[in-house]
């Protein structure tokens, strides 16, 4: 079988071995959860519970009339201690429910359950359940899944891709899911394909996950329309534009969506969330995380209740080892550094990585020697050194010519720069300034 790949990209150190053989375990039930209202890209939610109110597990806490939104639910039963602004993993303060967990953990009557058999559900009904369950893209983007699956009538979707690439170093949640829950993934994938009306699908996996590949292959043995495609281990292979280009040779048009070229891409963990919502009536209140890095005593993979403060999960992984210098939520290439261990996990949180000072990248910029390693690595074929320069010297009007908005912020240019220039930081500033000029 041929191994697929895209042009350019990088081969960072992966550190996957820290947790790749660690089965998913359940984290302890938290004593308190912090659930931000905004955990998706889209319209803001309105609270439907009040301070002091008792809520049951799986009870809906906030929703909106808008279509492009995903409601949030209580991951534990307990009392709403307060509704206040809390710093979330993005670094911004967001209105959040703080729930003090009680002992009972009583579940709300399964609001998602229908009387119909799963096989009899119509695409529209599946999409309704997915929205009601608050499912968003669990790869980290947190775009509401039901919106992605609601294909406009004028678009024809040919391929449904499930993204099991997990190209970020350190992370193993999708890998473990594929090893441990292959049949649930396929069930969830088929539900999504039915919802979106797509006939053909494949699952993309990097060749550094041989067990996931073999388990997923057995799981699709009897599926005529789903295949497993193997990709070279290279960053950022998991970016949907790179994934589609490598597998199908198609390019997502500048400023467009995969939908424009007949493709829908979803994450492995999202498929499991769909399975749990439709088959078990569970809203998205639990997901998986890799807690790892040299600064963690026992690197591990966990199921956790969304809203659990990260300190609880670090503790479950044996606590810190040595002096923590940087705590990253998500992967080390695109994740965000945290100021505090009090920060809550949200729907998109797939990793906690703790690094010692010696391993933290430092961007003490020296002059660019035009080595072009950034140009030769950029997966979007941009000129990072040029974009960074234009931004640094405030020549913002020229950024458009160099397709600055096509930057996917994967971090490859900064990673590879031998002069330690913070290229992505400058490009981000450039993207914002370019947007301002277009308004």
């Amino acid at each position, binding site marked *: 079988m041929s191994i697929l790949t895209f042009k350019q990209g990088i081969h960072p150190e992966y550190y996957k071995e820290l947790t790749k053989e660690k089965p998913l375990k359940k984290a302890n039930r938290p004593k308190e959860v912090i659930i931000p209202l905004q955990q998706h890209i889209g319209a803001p939610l309105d609270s439907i519970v009040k301070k002091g109110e008792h809520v049951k597990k799986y009870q809906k806490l906030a929703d909106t009339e808008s279509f492009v939104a995903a409601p949030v639910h209580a991951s534990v039963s307990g009392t709403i201690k307060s509704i206040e602004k809390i710093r979330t993993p993005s670094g911004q303060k967001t209105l959040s429910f703080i729930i003090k967990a009680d002992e009972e953990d009583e579940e709300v009557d399964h609001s998602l359950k229908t009387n119909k058999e799963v096989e009899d559900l119509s695409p529209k009904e599946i999409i309704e359940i997915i929205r009601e369950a608050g499912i968003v893209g669990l790869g980290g983007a947190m775009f509401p899944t039901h919106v992605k699956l609601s294909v406009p009538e004028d678009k024809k979707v040919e391929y449904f891709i499930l993204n099991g690439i997990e190209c970020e170093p350190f992370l193993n949640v999708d890998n473990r899911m594929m090893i441990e829950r292959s049949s649930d993934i396929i069930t969830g994938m088929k539900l999504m394909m039915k919802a979106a009306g797509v006939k053909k699908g494949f699952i993309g996996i990097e060749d550094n996950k041989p067990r996931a590949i073999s388990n997923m292959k057995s799981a699709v043995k009897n599926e005529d329309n789903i295949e497993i495609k193997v990709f070279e281990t290279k960053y950022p292979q998991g970016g949907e534009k790179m994934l589609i280009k490598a597998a199908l040779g198609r390019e997502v048009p500048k400023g467009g969506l995969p939908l424009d070229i007949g493709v829908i891409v979803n994450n492995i963990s999202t498929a499991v969330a769909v399975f749990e919502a439709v088959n078990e009536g569970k809203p998205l209140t639990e997901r998986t995380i890799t807690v790892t890095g040299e600064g963690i005593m026992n690197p591990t993979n966990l199921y956790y209740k969304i809203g659990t403060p990260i300190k609880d999960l670090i503790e479950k992984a044996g606590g810190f080892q040595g002096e923590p210098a*940087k705590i990253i939520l998500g992967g080390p*290439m695109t994740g965000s550094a945290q*100021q505090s261990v009090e920060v809550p996990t949200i729907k998109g949180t797939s990793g906690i990585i703790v690094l010692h000072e010696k391993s933290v990248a430092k961007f003490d910029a020296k002059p660019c020697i035009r080595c072009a390693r950034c140009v030769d690595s950029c997966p979007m*074929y*941009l*000129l990072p050194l040029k974009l960074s320069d234009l931004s640094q010297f405030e020549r913002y009007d020229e950024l458009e010519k160099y397709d600055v908005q096509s930057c996917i912020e994967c971090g490859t240019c900064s*990673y590879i720069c031998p002069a330690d220039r913070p290229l992505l930081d400058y490009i981000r500033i450039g993207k914002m300034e370019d947007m301002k000029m277009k308004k």
Partner: protein
Amino acid sequence: MNNKQLIVTSNPHIKDSTSVEDIMWTVVFALVPAVLAATYFFGLRALLVIAVSIIGAVITEYIFLKIRKKEIVIDDGSAVLTGLLLALTLPPSIPLWTAFLGSVVAIGLGKQVFGGLGYNPFNPALVGRAFLTASYPVLMTTWVLDGTSTATPLSYISNGELIEIWDLFIGNIGGSLGETSALALLLGAAYLIYKGYINWRIPTGMISSVIVISFLAGANPITHIFAGGLIIGAFYMATDMVTSPVTKKARWVFGIGAGLLVAIIRLWGGYPEGVMYSILLMNTTVPLLDRYLKPKTLGVAE
């Protein structure tokens, strides 16, 4: 848990460990076979010329950085590399003061006046060599091998004489210190291409166009490859990161353009050798080439 110590900076949080110094010193290392070959064919004097040229480059770099109140970065390998490359383009019999002067000009006029590493438009070693060629034409064209005066292979060719390809390849022939042994230069270049520190498109374009033009003009392409400074120029000077293009298409044009100029100067120009001027001329086109030969962004229609 003490949170005060945490570093909060943006992504990426990890980094490739290759530094500018690594790249510069690796190129210096790759030139060791050429230095050894020069010493073998021209004796210990070759080492002396190389040492003087490097010392001149480093001292000049130091003085300029000091005057400009910049961090002293003479250990980054770039000045050493410039001094070494310049020395390898000099005749073995060159007076030591000339080599020293050349490297002072290379670093001073070729690099530091523009703002130091990364800002110079021209290859500094070639600026130094151009200065010496213009100022001391006789010293720069006196060739000695085994203690006797000789001509360079390119001047033999101009005179219609035959030379052994094998002698050309291993370097047993008159010429500049490092230009003569193609074998030693190619060993180092292969390592640099493997490491990704020099781009293969530039030398490929440059040497191919010399082959094509010399063949069309009825000259022997093989001698044109191995005689003179084409190998060292194509692999070590035209590929200088600071002064060559960053896009793939521009690198092709840059390489092919430099090769065309070499062939034109050699075959129809007044000099037997044209590598130095062809690269310096192509250096001037780099901003233009990079500007008009951008790669096509993923998702943008042709």
